[in-house]
C-alpha cells in the first residue's frame, strides 16, 4: 500500500550530528544541525520542492518503556492508555504508545510507551521546515521505523536462503550521532541504543572488540525482556564482511551475523535509490539512515508523535482539511444537484412539448366534436326532454287487443256478451319523494245475457265456468262475478215460491256481470 495510505512526503532524518533529507530516490541533502548556514542550505532544498516533510528522529533523548495496558472496552481504551502513559512518563513532553504483537502478558496487552523531549534541535528543525514554507507531516522515531525495516530485511534475506529465524534481531550501524543499535523481538522494537563512536574506528580488530562490547551490553539489557542465552541473536551489521566475521567470532551468544553494504541494504529493501551512487563494498561508517528514511518515505509512520509546537499547526491543518472536505462536498453536492435539476428541466421541457402537442390535438378534436353537436338543430338536453315526454305518453298507451281477444276465447261460441267495457284507470300521482307508481292495468267488465238458457242451474254453472276460464287466462288479475244470473250471491236477496204459491210475476233477469281488474295485493 505504499503511497496510498502513506504520507508520500520527503523524510528528514534528524540526527545529533547531521540532518539527512531523503525521498524515495535516496538522499537529497545533508546538513549540520549546528550550522545556521547548513540549515539555510537545507531550507533552500526544502523550498525547491515544497511539500510536507516527515521528521524521523535519530537523536539521543528518546524514551521507551514496555508496559501492559489492561484490556478495556473500546470507548475507554484511549482514556486508559493516555492515563497509563502519563503515569509512566510524567516528565516527558511528547508521548505516544504502540501496541505490540505479543499478547501473552496476563496483566494486559503489552504496549511500547514512547517519549521524546522537545529539545532545541527539534524546534530549530521545525522552524527551518516552516521557514521553507513546508509543513511537517509528522514526527516519528527512527528506531521504530528501523524495526519495521528489519522485518522487511529479514523477509528479503529469507528469500536468499539466509533466514533470520531467531526471535531476536540486532541491527548495528554507524549513524551520524554514533553507533545505533536496534533490537527487535518478533518484529517489535525491544531495545535501541545510540552510543558514542569508538575512538579507533579504522582499526578493524579494535572496532570489532568495541562493537562486541556494545552488543554484549545490549544483550545484558535484553535479559529483563525475557531473552535467554540459549535463544541467541541474529545480527545485521552495516559494514564489511570481515568485520561481521570478527564480530561473530567474538560474540558467543550470536547466532548469525549478516554484514551488508549500503547498496546491499537498498537492494534488499527494494528502494528506488540510485544504486550507482552507493558503494558496492561494505565499509564501516557508510551512512544508511538516509536509506531508512527512504524506506519510511511513502509509508504511514508506525507512531506519529505530536510535539506541542506542532499541535496548533495540526489543528489549523485539520480545520482547513475539514473546510476543504466540506467545500469539496458542497461543490460535488451542488454539481450533482445542478445536474439533476438540469436533467429535470430537460424532462420537464420534453413533457411540456409533448403536452402541448396533446393539448392542440385534444383542442382540435373537441372543436370538431362541438361543431358536430352544434350542427344538430336541437340541444341534447331538449332532445332528451322531448323523447322523455314521448316515452312517458307512450307508456300510457294501452291497446285493448290482448285483453279483448282473451275475453273472446273465454266466452266461446255459445255465450254472447251483452256489453263489454274496457276502462284504463288513471295513473296515480307520485307521492312526495317517491317515484310515480306504474300505470295500473285496464279493468274489463263483461255483461252476459243467458236468457236463452231455460235451466237456471245450467246458467249459473255456465257463468262460473266462464269466470274459471277467465282466471286461467288472466292469472295475474282478479276475476270476480259482480252479478249472477240469479240472486244467489250472499249479499243478494233471493225470492222463490213452491206448491200452490205462485212467485211474483217478474221476468227472470238472466244477466250476469264479471269484472277483470287489478290483482288484489
Amino acid at each position, binding site marked *: 500500500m505504499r503511497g496510498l495510505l502513506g504520507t508520500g512526503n520527503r523524510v528528514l532524518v534528524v540526527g545529533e550530528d547531521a540532518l539527512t533529507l531523503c525521498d524515495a530516490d535516496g538522499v537529497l541533502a545533508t546538513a549540520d544541525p549546528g550550522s545556521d548556514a547548513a540549515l539555510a542550505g537545507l531550507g533552500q532544498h526544502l523550498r525547491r520542492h515544497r511539500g510536507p516533510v516527515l521528521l524521523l528522529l535519530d537523536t539521543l533523548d528518546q524514551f521507551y518503556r514496555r508496559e501492559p495496558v489492561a484490556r478495556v472496552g473500546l470507548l475507554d481504551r484511549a482514556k486508559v492508555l493516555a492515563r497509563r502513559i502519563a503515569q509512566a512518563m510524567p516528565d516527558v513532553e511528547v508521548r505516544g504508545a504502540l501496541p505490540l504483537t505479543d499478547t501473552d502478558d496476563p496483566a494486559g496487552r503489552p504496549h511500547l510507551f514512547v517519549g521524546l523531549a522537545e529539545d532545541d534541535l527539534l524546534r530549530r528543525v521545525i522552524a527551518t521546515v516552516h521557514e521553507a*514554507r513546508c509543513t511537517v507531516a509528522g514526527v516519528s522515531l527512527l528506531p521504530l521505523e528501523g524495526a519495521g525495516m528489519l522485518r522487511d530485511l529479514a523477509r528479503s534475506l529469507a528469500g536468499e536462503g539466509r533466514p533470520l529465524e531467531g526471535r531476536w534481531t540486532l541491527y548495528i550501524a554507524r549513524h551520524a550521532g554514533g553507533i545505533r543499535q536496534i533490537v527487535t523481538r518478533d518484529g517489535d522494537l525491544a531495545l535501541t541504543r545510540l552510543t558514542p563512536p569508538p575512538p579507533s574506528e579504522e582499526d578493524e580488530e579494535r572496532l570489532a572488540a568495541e562493537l562486541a562490547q556494545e552488543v554484549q551490553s545490549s544483550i545484558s539489557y535484553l535479559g529483563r525482556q525475557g531473552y535467554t542465552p540459549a535463544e541467541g541473536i541474529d545480527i545485521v551489521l552495516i559494514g564489511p564482511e570481515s568485520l561481521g566475521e570478527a564480530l561473530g567470532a567474538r560474540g558467543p551468544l550470536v547466532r548469525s551475523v549478516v554484514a551488508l553494504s549500503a547498496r546491499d541494504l537498498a537492494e534488499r529493501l527494494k528502494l528506488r535509490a540510485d544504486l550507482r551512487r552507493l558503494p558496492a563494498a561494505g565499509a564501516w561508517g557508510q551512512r544508511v539512515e538516509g536509506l531508512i528514511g527512504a524506506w519510511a518515505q511513502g509509508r504511514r509512520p508506525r507512531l506519529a508523535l505530536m510535539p506541542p509546537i506542532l499541535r496548533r499547526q495540526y489543528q489549523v491543518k485539520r480545520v482547513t482539511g475539514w473546510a476543504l472536505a466540506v467545500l469539496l462536498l458542497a461543490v460535488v453536492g451542488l454539481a450533482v444537484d*445542478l445536474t439533476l435539476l438540469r436533467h429535470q428541466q430537460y424532462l420537464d421541457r420534453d413533457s411540456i412539448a409533448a*403536452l*402541448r402537442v396533446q393539448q392542440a390535438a385534444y383542442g382540435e378534436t373537441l372543436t370538431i366534436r362541438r361543431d358536430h353537436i352544434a350542427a344538430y338543430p336541437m340541444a341534447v338536453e331538449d332532445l332528451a*326532454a322531448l323523447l322523455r315526454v314521448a316515452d312517458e305518453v307512450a307508456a300510457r298507451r294501452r291497446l285493448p287487443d290482448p285483453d279483448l281477444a282473451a275475453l273472446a276465447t273465454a266466452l266461446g261460441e255459445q255465450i254472447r256478451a251483452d256489453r263489454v*267495457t274496457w*276502462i284504463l284507470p288513471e295513473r296515480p300521482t307520485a307521492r312526495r319523494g317517491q317515484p310515480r307508481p306504474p300505470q295500473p292495468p285496464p279493468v274489463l267488465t263483461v255483461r252476459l245475457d243467458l236468457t236463452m238458457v231455460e235451466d237456471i242451474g245450467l246458467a249459473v254453472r255456465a257463468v262460473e265456468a266462464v269466470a274459471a276460464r277467465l282466471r286461467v287466462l288472466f292469472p295475474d288479475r282478479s276475476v270476480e262475478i259482480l252479478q249472477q244470473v240469479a240472486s244467489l250471491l250472499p249479499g243478494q236477496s233471493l225470492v222463490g215460491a213452491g206448491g200452490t204459491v205462485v212467485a211474483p210475476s217478474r221476468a227472470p233477469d238472466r244477466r250476469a256481470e264479471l269484472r277483470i281488474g287489478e290483482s288484489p295485493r
Partner: protein
Amino acid sequence: MTLQIGTGRTILIVLLALIVVALGGARLLLFGPATESLAQQRAGLERSVATLRRDVDRADATLVTLQRDWVRYEAVAADGFLDRQERLEAGARLDALARAAGLNGLLYTFRPQQTMETDGAAPAGRRLAMTPLEIDLFGPLDGTVLAFADGLDAALPGRVVLREVTVDRLLPVTPAALEALAQGQPVDFVRGRVRAEWYALVPEDGR
C-alpha cells in the same frame, strides 16, 4: 513560528469557496426558479390536457347520445307527435278509420284541449297538449268497434291513449235483421263508445 495553511491549500479553499458561491448562486437564482417555473408550467398543462380529455370524452358521449336520440326523434316527428292538433283533419281520419273498420256510423266530440303536466321538465318551447276525445260508434258486429279502437292510435297524428271502450248490443239477432243485413242495409247490432286522450307535444304558442 508562523502558522501555515499553505498557499496551495489557501488558493484551493478560496477557489472552492468561489465555486460553491457560484454554484449556489446559480442554484438559487437561475436553476431553482427555472425548474420550479417549468414544473408549474408542466403541471398546468397536465391539468389543461386532463380537462380537455374529459371534455372530449363528454363530447363523444353527447354525440353518441345525440345520434341515437336523433333517430328516435325522427321517428317521433314522423309519427306527428310534434305537430299541432288539427281537429278537422283528425275528424276526417276518424271517419276514414270507421269506414275501414266496417262501422256504419260514428259521432265524435273533441273536448277542449288541456296542457298536461309531465314527469320531468318539458322541452324548451313546447308543451304537452291533450285533447279528450269521445266517439260513439254504430256497426253490425262488436269486432268492428274493437278494430276501430285498435286503429285509433295509428290513425291520428301523435299519441292516442284509450281510456274506455264499451260495446253494447242494441238489437237481438233476428231473421228479419239478418235478412236486412243480407240485402245490404245497414243494421246496427252493436253500439260502441270510445273515450280516449289525444296527445301531442305542440309548440308553446301552438294549438
